[in-house]
């Protein structure tokens, strides 16, 4: 149980350095440096070499490039009438549903998740569009923040998904089947979120102010018309991926270009919008990417400390029954998710957990989906939760408040994990239907 002690020490360091109020990315670097120096007695020279190399390597990443581009797309949408039309369009459509426009967070993230492969980009883009609108319409801040932080993580579960690609390569599972396997669980989670919003708003209608007037059928049709620009953008980006024109990583570039064309065609383009959206995009993506880079270094430090390996070995040596194994692994991944990012969690734990899973008779395809949901859970748990950081940045509310707002959605996602474990067909049915029909 040395690994547990080490993990707790690292967690303490995180609370200390982030607690002083230093910038998160700098704080994470300090945790890594201190951990290596204190616990492993590495020399300052050795740590410096590791630190500089890992920072350059993890920042020079093709996979990361989608983040600034999707963020830019969000900034462009935010600064033009596309976002306003999105809200005016959805208003008559969701007016009858308790929760009203709060569902745009869930719907918007589900739609955008089908375009983007990362949850940080999904949260930042949709959040940029919805948070200020929802606040202006006096919707409950906690529900707004929480549903966005929770639904933003669908970016990883609904294809395309960076983590799924990495899992597929490491576990030698078909990436296409993984993508298909993520769809229904993703929709299930989205459904749970919407159901929860409805439940809360039925009990406390003041959480979601609705206009008393009813909307006519014509107004609903007009609403759909108002949604055209955003639907068009989603179609262009999805179309570019599924027609084979662009790879999922390139789709972000297509998204920016399509948005730009749309803005020019509708006569909204101006040099001010162009430069302001760009400067806004580089600022937000600097915040996200610098934290990802620091998290990569922290992961490296955890690797040197052998925490994930030792913990996974300890679990393996317990010789557990299948469902107890899954329960313990879920707790293990939640613990890693407290302070590591999704890709690191996947890469570090898989060599040990995958054999355990296979031995216990679980389908590696199913486990891929399970792992992605566990990674998503880590996105909304403090102290290191990327969706929380993004929401803090968007709303200006302290991280503690953001984390509390996200807590119900964490629980809903955990319920989805239980359902997924009890009914594995939820993940396995679609890929089997799509790919295994040929005898």
């Amino acid at each position, binding site marked *: 149980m040395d690994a547990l002690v080490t993990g707790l020490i690292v967690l303490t360091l995180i609370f200390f350095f982030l607690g002083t*109020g*230093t910038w998160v990315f700098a704080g994470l670097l300090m945790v890594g440096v201190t951990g290596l120096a204190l616990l492993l007695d590495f020399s300052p020279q050795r740590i410096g070499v590791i630190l500089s190399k890992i920072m350059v390597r993890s920042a020079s990443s093709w996979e990361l490039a989608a983040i600034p581009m999707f963020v830019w797309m969000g900034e462009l949408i935010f600064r033009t009438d596309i976002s306003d039309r999105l809200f005016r369009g959805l208003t008559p459509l969701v007016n009858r549903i308790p929760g009203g426009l709060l569902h745009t967070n869930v719907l918007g993230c589900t739609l955008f998740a089908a375009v983007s492969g990362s949850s940080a980009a999904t949260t930042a883009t949709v959040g940029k569009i919805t948070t200020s609108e929802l606040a202006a319409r006096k919707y409950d801040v906690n529900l707004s923040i929480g549903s966005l932080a929770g639904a933003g993580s669908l970016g990883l579960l609904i294809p395309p998904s960076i983590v799924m690609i990495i899992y597929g390569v490491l576990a030698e599972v078909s990436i296409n089947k993984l993508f298909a396997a993520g769809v229904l669980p993703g929709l299930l989670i989205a459904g749970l979120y919407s159901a929860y919003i409805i439940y809360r708003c039925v009990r406390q209608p003041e959480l979601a102010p609705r206009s008393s007037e009813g909307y006519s059928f014509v107004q609903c049709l007009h609403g759909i018309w108002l949604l055209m620009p955003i639907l068009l953008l989603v179609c262009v980006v999805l179309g570019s991926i599924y027609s084979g024109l662009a790879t999922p990583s390139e789709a972000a570039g297509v998204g920016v270009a399509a948005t730009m064309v749309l803005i020019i065609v509708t006569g909204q383009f101006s040099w001010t919008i162009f430069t302001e959206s760009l400067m806004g995009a580089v600022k937000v993506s600097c915040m996200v990417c610098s934290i990802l880079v620091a998290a990569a270094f922290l992961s490296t430090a955890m690797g040197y400390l052998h925490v994930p390996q030792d913990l996974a070995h300890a679990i393996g040596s317990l010789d557990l029954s299948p469902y107890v194994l899954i329960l313990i692994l879920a707790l293990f991944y939640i613990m890693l998710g407290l302070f590591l990012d999704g890709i690191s969690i996947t890469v570090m734990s898989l060599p040990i957990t995958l054999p355990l899973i296979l031995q216990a008779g679980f389908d590696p395809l199913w486990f891929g989906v399970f792992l992605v949901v566990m990674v998503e859970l880590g996105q909304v748990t403090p102290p290191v939760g990327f969706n929380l950081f993004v929401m803090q940045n968007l709303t200006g509310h302290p991280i503690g408040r953001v984390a509390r707002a996200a807590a119900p959605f964490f629980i809903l996602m955990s319920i989805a994990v239980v359902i997924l474990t009890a009914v594995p067909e939820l993940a396995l049915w679609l890929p089997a239907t799509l790919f295994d029909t040929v005898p």
Partner: protein
Amino acid sequence: MNTFQSLVYRLSRLAAQLSAVLLVYMVLHILLEIVLRSFFATSTFVLDEMVGYGVAAMTFLTLGYAVHDDALIRVNIVASRLRGRAKRALETLCLAMTLAMSCYITWYMWIGVKRNWDRGAVSESIAEVPLWIPEGLVLLGIVLFSIQLFALLVKQLTPVSRVTSE
């Protein structure tokens, strides 16, 4: 002192504008790659390499601007409960720790860049980009970030009266 502050901020903003140019370049390179691959059955052969350099340079070149404009996330649980001198002391501590960390990184990145310069190392792709260039941009970003932190630290340590009396 104010001229120093504004000079540093202008530098930071210039670097962030360079990042913005890099972002535009990345989008254009991706579009070019898609067109070449889909319609001309060829490739620029360096897309993921160049865009990778772009993301790294962007991230680090924007740090100074982002920290000045308060766009980098921090956890304010303790600081928000403090007032007056305690608050200033904590802010000074954060700036000093981050500046120290940033200088530490600068030194080891400098060693890496210099080594790649000395041995003429290039990337393994068809473009054979000298490795000191992308790493040098990252280094430049970290250096500018350090300078911006230093400027903020000086401002923090300057008595309030002198800062407010423009």
